């Protein structure tokens, strides 16, 4: 394996690591804020299920990233193009982090891959159907999460409305959050680690290390899940911003419903090979839980950031990757 391939794989795994680092807060914020687990135990719990996801889910999302964004038959996905795509995604994430703008790593990755490929060979290399599938579910995943979060909360409240011992109920849902947080971490590990697998698969195919129709090698699966798990383990507890109280104030029952709703959404999208933003999915579910009370219970500034991320991320990452590909081509 040549040095360039190894370097791109290392950058892709670093991207995966930062994804775990940043998104750990989504999995554990409610568990920590309701004091079910200490932050350290919570990130360990989330990291374990991030890693264990490879035992439960296939590699459909990885196949979508590797085959359905850019046509692999055109031979465009060279080491340089994939590297430029990653530079676009990471560059966009760093820019938005510096400017305080909302973003989605998942969308940035798709935008970056597309931008680098277009810079190399024009718009004809893009897979229209694959991009349409990804684009539609960028919009749908938070709305599906919202509807499920709302329905789950209503069903729980309706079925338990005769229970008078609220303290007992809260205790039960605090314990239930252990399972809902585990399920969300499983979905997060499945969907996000597979995006990295897709990038690595693309570069291995592009470099001639694998056939065009090859499955994701086991070492790639394990490396991607290890990277996201380590990211969650090492960074998550320091950047826990309670998603719950940032969007709407959550009780244990609401945290349970939001995590379960987003876990269901992620299980479905991962099985169907659809890359989605895990952050936006749980944001939608939390808004859904808040909307069972009233719309003014939701802090719409945070929810509105989801819409801005839709509009900005893919074009932004596309542009940076487009420029990066030109630089890479001149330099090589």
């Amino acid at each position, binding site marked *: 394996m040549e040095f360039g391939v190894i370097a791109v794989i290392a950058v892709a795994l670093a991207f995966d690591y930062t994804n775990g680092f940043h998104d750990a807060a989504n999995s554990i914020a409610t568990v920590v804020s309701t004091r079910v687990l200490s932050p350290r135990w919570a990130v360990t719990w989330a990291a374990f299920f991030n890693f264990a996801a490879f035992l439960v889910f296939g590699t459909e999302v990885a196949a979508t990233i590797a085959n359905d964004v850019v046509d692999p038959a055109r031979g465009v996905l060279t080491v340089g193009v994939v590297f430029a795509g990653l530079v676009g995604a990471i560059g966009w994430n760093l820019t938005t982090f510096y400017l305080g703008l909302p973003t989605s790593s998942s969308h940035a990755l798709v935008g970056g891959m597309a931008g680098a490929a277009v810079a190399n060979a024009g718009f004809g290399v893009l897979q229209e*159907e694959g991009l*349409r*599938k990804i*684009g*539609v*579910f960028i*919009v*749908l995943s938070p*709305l*599906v999460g*919202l*509807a499920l979060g*709302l*329905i789950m909360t209503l069903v729980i409240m309706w079925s338990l409305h005769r229970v008078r011992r609220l303290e007992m109920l809260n205790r039960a849902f605090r314990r239930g959050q252990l399972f809902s947080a585990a399920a969300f971490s499983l979905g997060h590990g499945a969907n996000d680690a597979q995006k990295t697998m897709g990038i690595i698969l693309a570069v291995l195919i592009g470099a001639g290390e694998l056939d065009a129709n090859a499955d994701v090698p086991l070492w790639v699966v394990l490396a991607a899940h290890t990277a996201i798990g380590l990211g969650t383990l090492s960074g998550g507890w320091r950047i826990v911003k309670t998603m719950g109280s940032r969007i709407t104030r959550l009780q244990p029952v609401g945290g349970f419903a939001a995590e379960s709703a987003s876990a269901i959404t992620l299980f479905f999208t991962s099985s*169907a090979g*659809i890359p989605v933003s895990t952050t936006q999915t749980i944001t939608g579910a939390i808004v859904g839980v808040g*909307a069972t*009370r*009233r*719309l*003014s219970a939701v802090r719409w500034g945070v929810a509105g950031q989801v819409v801005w991320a839709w509009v900005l991320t893919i074009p932004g990452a596309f542009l940076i990757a487009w420029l990066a590909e030109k630089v890479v081509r001149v330099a090589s």
Partner: protein
Amino acid sequence: MRDQRLWFFLGAGAVCAGMVPLAPTDLRWVPVVTAVVYVVLAALVALDSWGRRQRRPGRPGLRQGKARSG
């Protein structure tokens, strides 16, 4: 004041319906089902608001307070 959730759910349902022709054929059922769910939620909110108005005739202040907390 009418419950804002009615318009929010109708808007979300319209966005989902707008995604139907764009979605891949095998996954088209997802935006269809989601749009229907939002329309049903909007109908339930409308029924709830109507029911509250019917239960409290002549007490608009209380009705408004209930709508906000409900």
